[in-house]
């Protein structure tokens, strides 16, 4: 998960205050939203600049919805969705997409699994037909399961075992989320991946892959009414396979200890520091808390004019990089992070001290109005840049809707951001940036 709910829309003056730059207003995109009788939600985002359309289907199920002991099954199923159905042989869909120069891929996160094709508009019906087919007709055989399991094990070796940073990260997340399934890696624990079976994949598929647990997002050179008609013709034929699902995962208990993780690896040449705090997401946060955390991250470490960069990189000159981030787009509690790496022979412990100094300073004195205005403007302006990419737009809507948000979460985001006050940002900092909510991690060369 790496999406914030930043995105888009009307960029408006911050609280009507004067700023040095001209304010731009950008009409909200004309998004059409509807729902088929079988419960499939549909979003259409027209963008007629190029004869290209992005077709995405999002299932509201990710690795955090896996049964205990079956870690990796959401992602394994995503791979197996390319293995053919009752009516379509394996590889046919991909061949059809490739034949017209289309792009395709699929991805799995903790909260959702999505499949997409980027194609010429004439091919939209074809893609919808195949995608609707594999929503309910998947068949799996042992012949396809075994090689594909080797593929995901190889993927784990590439992504995790070959990257010291990822090895550490996996432990950090498992520690930050000591009870909630966000602590389980999306790819799965290797010992459990080895045991994943055809039946496990089919069970997950039958439990979650159903039109009433999915969102269709189509962005590009299309007419909304035509998209809806095509959706009716294709996805409309798929019957509801499950009753409506209300996600109810275990709740991460309030953290009470600060935790430190050290990892030494012979492949590491330069140490680095990171820390994560447990914080609420846009979906779970009290009013304006998520927006305040978003602004706090920008002020602390979102760019080369942020406090951390200025202090550690430019003034103290002890770091080559330093920053902060907030991952607001998830269904349950989420992460607020810091990072920094030492410059030259500087010590990693000093980097941590300097980060703490910046945090403590902010906790003590709070932020300034100028910082708040700049952070807000930056977030809003980068939202305008997102409008340039239909794929980014489709991903934004898909993410928000599949984690349980609605169009207002996107449409009203600029207003909500504009309404955040200095006091509210200071308040979330005090409430959440407490060490006993955090996991601190040090990656070091082998001593």
């Amino acid at each position: 998960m790496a999406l914030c709910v930043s995105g888009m829309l009307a960029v408006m003056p911050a609280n009507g205050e004067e700023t040095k730059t001209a304010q731009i207003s950008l009409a909200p995109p004309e998004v059409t939203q509807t729902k088929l009788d079988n419960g499939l939600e549909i979003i259409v985002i027209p963008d007629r600049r190029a004869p290209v359309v992005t077709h995405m289907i999002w299932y509201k199920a990710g690795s955090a919805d896996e049964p205990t002991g079956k870690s990796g099954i959401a992602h394994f199923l995503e791979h197996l969705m390319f293995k053919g159905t009752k009516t379509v042989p394996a590889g046919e869909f991909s061949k059809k997409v490739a034949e017209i120069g289309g792009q395709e891929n699929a991805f799995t996160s903790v909260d959702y699994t999505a499949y997409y094709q980027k194609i010429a508009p004439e091919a939209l019906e074809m893609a919808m037909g195949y995608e609707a087919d594999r929503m309910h007709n998947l068949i799996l055989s042992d012949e396809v399961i075994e090689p594909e399991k080797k593929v995901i094990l190889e993927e784990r070796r590439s992504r995790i075992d070959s990257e010291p940073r990822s090895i550490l990260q996996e432990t950090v997340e498992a520690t930050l989320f000591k009870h909630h399934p966000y602590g389980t890696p999306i790819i799965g624990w290797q010992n459990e991946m080895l045991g994943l079976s055809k039946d496990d994949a089919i069970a997950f598929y039958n439990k979650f892959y159903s039109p009433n647990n999915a969102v269709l997002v189509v962005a590009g050179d299309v007419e909304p009414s035509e998209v809806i008609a095509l959706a009716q013709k294709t996805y409309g034929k798929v019957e509801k396979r499950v009753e409506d699902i209300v996600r109810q995962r275990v709740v991460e208990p309030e953290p009470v200890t600060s935790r430190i993780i050290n990892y030494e690896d012979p492949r590491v040449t330069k140490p680095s520091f990171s820390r994560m705090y447990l914080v609420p997401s846009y979906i779970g946060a009290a009013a304006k808390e998520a927006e305040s955390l978003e602004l706090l991250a920008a002020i602390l470490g979102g760019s080369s004019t942020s406090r951390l960069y200025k202090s550690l990189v430019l003034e103290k000159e002890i770091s080559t990089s330093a920053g902060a981030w907030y991952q607001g787009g998830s269904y349950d509690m989420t992460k607020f992070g810091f990072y920094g790496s030492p410059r030259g022979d500087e010590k990693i412990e000093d980097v941590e001290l300097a980060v703490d100094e910046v945090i403590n300073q902010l906790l003590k004195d709070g932020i300034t109005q100028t910082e708040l205005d700049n952070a807000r403007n930056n977030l809003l302006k980068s939202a305008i840049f997102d409008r340039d990419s239909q794929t980014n737009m489709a991903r934004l809507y898909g993410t928000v809707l599949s984690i349980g948000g609605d169009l207002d979460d996107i449409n009203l985001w600029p207003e909500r951001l504009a309404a955040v006050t200095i006091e509210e940002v200071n308040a979330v900092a005090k409430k959440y940036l407490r060490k006993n909510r955090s996991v601190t991690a040090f990656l070091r060369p082998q001593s």
Partner: protein
Amino acid sequence: MILFHKFKSMLASSMLVFAIFIVNVSNVWAIDIQEVVTPSGIKAWLVEDYTVPLISVSMEFTGGSTQDPAGLEGVTSIMGAMMDEGAGDLDTAALKAELEERGIELGFSADRDNVSGGMKLIATEKERAFELLKMVLTAPKFEAASLERIRAGYISGAKRNTNDPDSILGKRIRETLFKDHPYGREQRGTLNSLEKITRDDIVSRHQALFARDNVYIGVVGAISKEELMVELERTLSDLPQQATLVEIPDIVPVYGMREHITFESPQTTVSLAMPGLKRNAPDFFAAHIMNHILGGGTFSSWLYEEIREKRGLVYGIGTNLVTLEHTAYLGGGFATKPDQAKDALELTLSEIKRMATDGPTQEELDAAKKFVFGTYAISNLDTSSKISNVLVGLQSSKLGIDYINKRAEFIDAVSLDVVKAMARRLLSDPPMVITIGPGEV
């Protein structure tokens, strides 16, 4: 964290470069390119579009890190990274603050053959944005503190590379293919060279490489031809007329050698290289289409099918036609569990051999031609910055403003015999194979 089904950038780590500009513009969609020439002769290509209030400006200055003086490897790369570190009357912090405040993304970076970059901005900021661009291009500060900071980052990177299997492999591939040609050198410098670079070296690189006779410009967005002419004239008028470039010879690599580097890691990475074809070769499309069938970026290439789909030996596998200014080759590779590396390599070599001897079927060729024909708009023309990059690439590759219309004919002309002949020509001799991992492959 999101896991993708397929490697997003195939071979990203083990390949030398990805400066592959796949110029296969589809003519199903005509984009209206206007040529702009300012009174003093500065040329740019423009696509006017007011749908989104953005402007994207792409620029490419011929002459990249191949121009690094011997012993100062990395100097051009550092120069590129320092372009937005203060300019004119603005120091680093002030320039970054203003760019951020106005929502202007501006920057440059060097690759082997050129320094490229530009800016992306909200149209209402265009006047000041072009002023800032002018300052960056003509009066960069190259402050001492910035140099030390960026140098420190590069040195960390160079140290990391000495212990990173993909970097070790990449270095060995470069040395093997290019020997003492500038392509064989470390683009981001060595521990030795990085220590030596001075501010004067950076300034001298800037003076040599930023001129009016070696720049290609592409602009997309909410700006008219007339406005652009005025802005470009103003922005570039203070640059020297001529760049000072060292001539770089072409190089044809020698392939065929096998080598293993022992390195303790959970996977063995295998890298291959075979002869390729430069972008301006008349029969480029035959090679491009052949590569697509063998190991191109879809879920249906021969290598993907045989090695991933049927046997599950790898997560990512593919081949890539690497086209540089002075050379070209066909690269490929994958990573796998060490005890599977031998099998996966043998299968890969046997698919390459099958391509050289049997070639594809007519059906495979037809499908590949359709892909190559259709992929251009989908891959390259869906955002302003991609289009402005395309405008630059079309110019620097000397493909002509009408290339978009001609492209379909080039693809059409590729017959089964032509592809088979191309496969025989490029793939008949043993490829270079370099592997890195715990044990011999």
